C-alpha cells in the first residue's frame, strides 16, 4: 500500500493539515501536497478508468506528463473535469471525483470492454464507418458516443473570474529548474531584461530531489542563493505557477499563470493568460521520463522511477512497501537509493543492460540491493494494484525466471528532452541514437524576423541530461561569460534504448504493453496500424489515437514511434515525430476569454440618451455594437401594440427618435467635391452650401453598400451621413481610396459620429416643437425641405436638418453629445402638449416601408445594385465616373431579367413572412425549384391597417398587378405586385 512516511517531505508543511475528499471519502493531506501526493498518502492509488477499455488507472507520474490521474475537481459553479492531480496543489476542502467509471471506480461496468479488447483494435472507430454500412448510424455511433469522453462537462456557469496581461522582455526563460536559473542569471548579468516562468509552485526543478551538488552546495541551498541574486536584479522578473503554453512567430509567447487555483473562493482572478513579446526564448523545460513497454505496465502501482522518488523526497509519500525498479539507465538507481534512505524495501533492480558498471549501481549493490543484469519484466501480476513482477531475460521471449512479490514498480526507459517550445515555432530535431532521444538541432532552430534563432533549449531540454553538462549548456544558452556553475553528481554509464520488454515478446504480451495510457494504445495497436499500411507517423497517430489524449503523448510518443519504426523496418529519425502544437499543457477556456464575460463580454455602445431609454422601459434592438430602442412598450402593451401606437402617434402628432447612432463623417478640402462625386452615384460637388442631398454609395463591383444624406456645410466641407452600421466601415472606405488610390487629392476626413447627439423630430407638430424650443427659424420659407440651419436651439448650439425618412414633416437636430440628454428632455417637455412620444427603430422601419424607402441590409445584401431598387434617379448620368459605374455597365447588371424592387400586398391583407420566396415553374441544374422573387421588408402598417411588403421580383416593375404565390412553411400566400410607395405617394405631408 501507499502511505505517508513519518519523517521527511521537503515540500510539505506537517503543521498545516488539509481535509479533502475523493469520491466522497474524507481524506487528509498537508499544505504543499499535490492532489496526487495526498491521494497516495491515503493509499488511493486507483484514480480513474482508462478511456477505451475502462482498465484501472493509477498515478504514473509526478508532473505535467501524467496521463492517468485526472479527476473532476470542485463543486457546482467551480466544478472542472480532467484536473491533473499531479500538478494541482492541494487546498482545504478540495472535493475530487473519479472519472470514466460507472457505477463506481472499483466496480466499473465499462471494464467489460477490456474483455472485448480484441474486438476494439486500433482504428476500430474508423472501421465502424466502413462495414456494415447501416451499423454506424444505428449501432456503433450511439454506443461509441455514450462511452466516449473522459470528464463530465460542468453544468453551471464558472463562478471564477479570469484576466489577461501583456508583458515584454528581451529574454524569456521557460522553466525555473537549475538550468533555467543558470541561463536567467547569465542573461541578466549581460544587462538584458529577463522574465523567468516556472510552471510549478517551486523553484529548482528536480535537482534537489536528485541530490545534486552545485558549486559545492546542496542544490536547495544553491537554488535559494541564485534566486536571491536574481531577485536583487532590477532587470529580472520571476513568476511561479506560470506555464508557457505556446511559442509563436515573432517571439509571441502565451503563458498561463494559475493565480488562485490553490486559493479557491478568494476574490482573485483564477487564471491569468500572459501574452508576451520576447526577443529570445530559452526553453529550460527539462526532460520527461519514458515508461518501458512490458506486459501490464498500466496496472496501478507501476510508476515512473523518478516520480517514485519525487513522492518519497518531496512529499514523504511511500508509493509502496516493496518496490521493484526496472530500468535501462543509471538514473533509476537514484530511486532505489531514495527508497532505501526512507527505510523502504527494494527487492531487486531489473536492468535491461547486459552489464551494469556505473557508480550509482555500485552504490546500490554496496547497500545490498540485488541488481539483475540483462533482465526485464515478463509481466506484471495484479488487477487494481501490482502484486508481483515476473522476471525474464530481456533478450528472450518472456519465459518467467522468477516472480518477485511487490506493490510498486518503478520503471525508467530513459528520458525525452522537452523540446515542445523549440518545435512549436518550427525548430527541427536531431536523433541522438546513443541516448535514444530527440534533441533540438541548433542548426535548424526557429528563426525570428532577423533570420537568427530565437528559441534556444538549455540544460536537459537540449539533451544535456547530466548535471555537469546541463549547467554549462544553460550558462552558454544565457550568453554567460566567465565560468558556469559546477554541478557534481556521480558519473552515469550509457543507457541502452529498450522499446519493448522482453525484446522477443510474443503477441499475447504485446497486447498488454501500453504506450498511451490514457487513450489505451498498446504496442500491438501500433504494429497493427503498420501492417494495415500506415507509414506516416501523423496518420498512425490519428488512426490509433496514440498521443491524442490530454497529455498529448508526453510519455508515449517516443515509444510509439520507435515501435512504428521497428514495424516499418526503418530507423527512428526516418519516421520522425508528430507535430508539437500549443498549448504545451491544457489552458482554461476562462483564461482565453479573459475579462470578456458578463457586462464586458463585448463593448456595448451607448448614446447620450441611453440611460433615459433604459429608465423608460425601452425594448432594445442590437444594431452593430449599439443598443437602440426597438419600441417603448407601456404597461400591458405587446411590442407590436407599442409599435403601432408609436407609428400612429408620429403620423398624427409628434414622434421623437434618438438618431445619434447615424454615421457623420466630415469631408473637407479643395478636392472634397471631386472626391464625393467619385464616392457617391450622384453629384455632390454642385450641392449648394446649406443644402442636403440623398446619396448612394457603391463598391467597385457596383453593389450598393451605404446610403445617407450629404450636407454641404461650407464651400470646401461636406458632412456625410451614413447608416448606423456603416459609420466606421464607410470612413475606412474613404480613407482607403484617399490613401491608396487618390493620395495626391487634397481631402481630409474626420469621423464625427460620436461628437453629436441627434434627435429626429417627426410629425405634423414637428415645426411647432422646434418653434417652442426657440432660437432658429424653422419656418417653411426659412428652412425648406432638404436644407439645414445652424444656430442655438433651446440654448444649445445646434444644426437643424430638414430631412425626412418617414414621409412626415421632419427635422433632425444635432447637438454636441454632452448636451444630447438636455435636448432630449427639452423636446419631451416642450412636446408634452403637442402629443410628443418617443418612438423606436421598429416604428422607424414601418414608416420608411410605408413610404417605400429602402433600408441598407434589408433591400440590399451585397448583390443588389441601385438600378435594381428603382434608384436610377439618384445616379448621375452626366458624370464620367464613380466607384461602381463601370461594374454596373456589365451585361449581367444591365440584364432586364434581374430581380427588381416592387411593393407587395397580400390579397387577404395579412403580413408576409420575412424573406419568403415566390417559386417559379421548373427546376435548376441542381434539381432545385426555380424562384422568381423574395420578400425583403414586411410589416403590418398601422396607417393602412394591413400588411405591406417590399420584395425583389424577376422583372418586377414590368409585372404590376400580377399575383405571385409566396410559400412559407408549406402555406401559400398570394400577393399582388404593386408600387412600393404605400403612403402619401406625392410627398405632400413632408412638404408642409
Amino acid at each position: 500500500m501507499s502511505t505517508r512516511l513519518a519523517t521527511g517531505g521537503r515540500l510539505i508543511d506537517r503543521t498545516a493539515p488539509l481535509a479533502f475528499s475523493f469520491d466522497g471519502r474524507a481524506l487528509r493531506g498537508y499544505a504543499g501536497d499535490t492532489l496526487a501526493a495526498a491521494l497516495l498518502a491515503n493509499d488511493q492509488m486507483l484514480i480513474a478508468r482508462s478511456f477505451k477499455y475502462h482498465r484501472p488507472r493509477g498515478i504514473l507520474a509526478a508532473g505535467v506528463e501524467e496521463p492517468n490521474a485526472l479527476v473532476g475537481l470542485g463543486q457546482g459553479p467551480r466544478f472542472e473535469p480532467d484536473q491533473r492531480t499531479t500538478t494541482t496543489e492541494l487546498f482545504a476542502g478540495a472535493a475530487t471525483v473519479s472519472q470514466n467509471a460507472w457505477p463506481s471506480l472499483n466496480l466499473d461496468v465499462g471494464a467489460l470492454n477490456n474483455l472485448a479488447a480484441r474486438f476494439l483494435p486500433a482504428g476500430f472507430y474508423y472501421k465502424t464507418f466502413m462495414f456494415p454500412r447501416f451499423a454506424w448510424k444505428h449501432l456503433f455511433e450511439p454506443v461509441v458516443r455514450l462511452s466516449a469522453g473522459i470528464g463530465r462537462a460542468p453544468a453551471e456557469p464558472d463562478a471564477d473570474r479570469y484576466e489577461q496581461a501583456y508583458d515584454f522582455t528581451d529574454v524569456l526563460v521557460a522553466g525555473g529548474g537549475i538550468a533555467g536559473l543558470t541561463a536567467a542569471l547569465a542573461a541578466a548579468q549581460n544587462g538584458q531584461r529577463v522574465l523567468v516562468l516556472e510552471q510549478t509552485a517551486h523553484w529548482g526543478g528536480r535537482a534537489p530531489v536528485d541530490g545534486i551538488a552545485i558549486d559545492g552546495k546542496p542544490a536547495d541551498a544553491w537554488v535559494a542563493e541564485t534566486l536571491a541574486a536574481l531577485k536583487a536584479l532590477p532587470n529580472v522578473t520571476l513568476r511561479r505557477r506560470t506555464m508557457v503554453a505556446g511559442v509563436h512567430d515573432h517571439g509571441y509567447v502565451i503563458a498561463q499563470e494559475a493565480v488562485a487555483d490553490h486559493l479557491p473562493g478568494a476574490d482573485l482572478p483564477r487564471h491569468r493568460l500572459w501574452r508576451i513579446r520576447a526577443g529570445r526564448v530559452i526553453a529550460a523545460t527539462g526532460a520527461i521520463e519514458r515508461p518501458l513497454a512490458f506486459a501490464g505496465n498500466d496496472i496501478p502501482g507501476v510508476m515512473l522511477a523518478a516520480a517514485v522518488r519525487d513522492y518519497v523526497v518531496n512529499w514523504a509519500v511511500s508509493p509502496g512497501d516493496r518496490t521493484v525498479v526496472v530500468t535501462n539507465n543509471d538514473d533509476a538507481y537514484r530511486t532505489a537509493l531514495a527508497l532505501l534512505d526512507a527505510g523502504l524495501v527494494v527487492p531487486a533492480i531489473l536492468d535491461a543492460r547486459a552489464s551494469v558498471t556505473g557508480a550509482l549501481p555500485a552504490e546500490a549493490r554496496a547497500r545490498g540491493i540485488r541488481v539483475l543484469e540483462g533482465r526485464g519484466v515478463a509481466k506484471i501480476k495484479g488487477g487494481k494494484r501490482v502484486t508481483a513482477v515476473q522476471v525474464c531475460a530481456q533478450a528472450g521471449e518472456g519465459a518467467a525466471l522468477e516472480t518477485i512479490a511487490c506493490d510498486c514498480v518503478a520503471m525508467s526507459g530513459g528520458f525525452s528532452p522537452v523540446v515542445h517550445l523549440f518545435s512549436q515555432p518550427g525548430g527541427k530535431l536531431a536523433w541522438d541514437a546513443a541516448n535514444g532521444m530527440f534533441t533540438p538541432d541548433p542548426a535548424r532552430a526557429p528563426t525570428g524576423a532577423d533570420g537568427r534563432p530565437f528559441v534556444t533549449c538549455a540544460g536537459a531540454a537540449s539533451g544535456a541530461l547530466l548535471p555537469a553538462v546541463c549547467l554549462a549548456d544553460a550558462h552558454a544558452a544565457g550568453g554567460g561569460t566567465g565560468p558556469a556553475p559546477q554541478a557534481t553528481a556521480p558519473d552515469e554509464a550509457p543507457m541502452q534504448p529498450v522499446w519493448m520488454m522482453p525484446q522477443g515478446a510474443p503477441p499475447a504480451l504485446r497486447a498488454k504493453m501500453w504506450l498511451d495510457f490514457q487513450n489505451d494504445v498498446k504496442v500491438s495497436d501500433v504494429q497493427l496500424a503498420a501492417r494495415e499500411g500506415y507509414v506516416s507517423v501523423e496518420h498512425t497517430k490519428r488512426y490509433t489515437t496514440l498521443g491524442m489524449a490530454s497529455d498529448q503523448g508526453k510519455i508515449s510518443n517516443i515509444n510509439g514511434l520507435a515501435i512504428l519504426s521497428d514495424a516499418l523496418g526503418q530507423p527512428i529519425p526516418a519516421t520522425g515525430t508528430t507535430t508539437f502544437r500549443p498549448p504545451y499543457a491544457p489552458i482554461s477556456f476562462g483564461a482565453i476569454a479573459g475579462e470578456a464575460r458578463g457586462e464586458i463580454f463585448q463593448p456595448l455602445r451607448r448614446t447620450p440618451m441611453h440611460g433615459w431609454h433604459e429608465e423608460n422601459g425601452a425594448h432594445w434592438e442590437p444594431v452593430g455594437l449599439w443598443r437602440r430602442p426597438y419600441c417603448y412598450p407601456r404597461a400591458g402593451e405587446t411590442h407590436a401594440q407599442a409599435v403601432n401606437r408609436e407609428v400612429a402617434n408620429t403620423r398624427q402628432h409628434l414622434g421623437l427618435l434618438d438618431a445619434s447612432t447615424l454615421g457623420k463623417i466630415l469631408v473637407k478640402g479643395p478636392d472634397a467635391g471631386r472626391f464625393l462625386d467619385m464616392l457617391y452615384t450622384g453629384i455632390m460637388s454642385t450641392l449648394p452650401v446649406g443644402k442636403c442631398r440623398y446619396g448612394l454609395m457603391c463598391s467597385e463591383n457596383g453593389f450598393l453598400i451605404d446610403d445617407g444624406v450629404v450636407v454641404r456645410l461650407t464651400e470646401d466641407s461636406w458632412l456625410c451621413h451614413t447608416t448606423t452600421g456603416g459609420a466606421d466601415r464607410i470612413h475606412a472606405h474613404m480613407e482607403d481610396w484617399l490613401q491608396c488610390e487618390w493620395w495626391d487629392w487634397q481631402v481630409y476626413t474626420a469621423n464625427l459620429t460620436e461628437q453629436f447627439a441627434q434627435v429626429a423630430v417627426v410629425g405634423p407638430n414637428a415645426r411647432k416643437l422646434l418653434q417652442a424650443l426657440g432660437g432658429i427659424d424653422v419656418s417653411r420659407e426659412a428652412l425648406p425641405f432638404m436644407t439645414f440651419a445652424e444656430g442655438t436651439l433651446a440654448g444649445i448650439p445646434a444644426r437643424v436638418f430638414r430631412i425626412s425618412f418617414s414621409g412626415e414633416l421632419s427635422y433632425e437636430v444635432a447637438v454636441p453629445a454632452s448636451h444630447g440628454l438636455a435636448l432630449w428632455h427639452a423636446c419631451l417637455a416642450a412636446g408634452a402638449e403637442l402629443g410628443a412620444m418617443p418612438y423606436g427603430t421598429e416604428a422607424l422601419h414601418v414608416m420608411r416601408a410605408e413610404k417605400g424607402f429602402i433600408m441598407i441590409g434589408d433591400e440590399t445584401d451585397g448583390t443588389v445594385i441601385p438600378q435594381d431598387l428603382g434608384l436610377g434617379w439618384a445616379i448621375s448620368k452626366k458624370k464620367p465616373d464613380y466607384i461602381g459605374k463601370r461594374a454596373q455597365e456589365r451585361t449581367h447588371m444591365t440584364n432586364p431579367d434581374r430581380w427588381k424592387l416592387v411593393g407587395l400586398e397580400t390579397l387577404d391583407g395579412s403580413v408576409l413572412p420575412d424573406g419568403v420566396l415566390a417559386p417559379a415553374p421548373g427546376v435548376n441544374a441542381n434539381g432545385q425549384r426555380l424562384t422568381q422573387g423574395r420578400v425583403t421588408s414586411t410589416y403590418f402598417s398601422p396607417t393602412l391597417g394591413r400588411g405591406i411588403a417590399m420584395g425583389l421580383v424577376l422583372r418586377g416593375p414590368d409585372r404590376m398587378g400580377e399575383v405571385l404565390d409566396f410559400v412559407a412553411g408549406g402555406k401559400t400566400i398570394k400577393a399582388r405586385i404593386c408600387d412600393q410607395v404605400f403612403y402619401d405617394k406625392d410627398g405632400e405631408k413632408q412638404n408642409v
Partner: protein
Amino acid sequence: MSEPISALGGASAEGFARVTEAGPLGMITLRGDLAAPAVASAVKAATGCALPARRAITTQGENSAAWMSPDELLLLVPYPEAAATSATLEAALKGRHALVANVSDARALFRVTGPKADQVLAKLCPVDFATLPAAEIRRTRAAQVAAALWRSNPDEISLICFRSVARYMFDLLAVSARPGSELAPG
C-alpha cells in the same frame, strides 16, 4: 445653456489604483501638413504648445498637443475653450488645406492613478509600460476598443476612448484594478 454632461458624469472606482472618468475635456482634431511652419505656429498661437514630434505629447499649462498620425494632431484644452480655440485655429489656417474639428464630445477621458497604475493598463493594452516615456502618447487598444494613453503625471496615466464605449472602458479598468489582482511577481 445646459451644463455639458460627460459620458459617465465623473464616475470613479477604487482598487489597487484609482479609476476616474475625468471629462469633459476640450479636444480638437487638427489634420494638416505637420511639416508646414504655418501649422506649427498656428498650434503654438492657439494652445501655447510646441508641435509634438512623432508619438509625442507636448504640454503648456492646461493645454496639450498630441501626435496622432503623420497628418493629425489632437489638441487638448479646457472644455469651455474648445470652440474658441477651434475658431482661432480655423482663422490661422485659412487658405491652407487643413481640417479643424471640435471632438470634445466624441470622447471620454479616464485617469488611472496610483503607483500601480501601469499594472491596470498592462492587463488591457499591448503596451510595454516599462519603456513608455513620460512625454509619449500611445495609440493602442484596451481589450476590444481603441484607446490613446499617456503619462499625464507621475503615477498617473490618462486614457481617451470613444464616448459610446465609456461604460465598457470604465468597467474594464475597474475590474482590472480589483485589489489582490496586482501583477506583482511571486
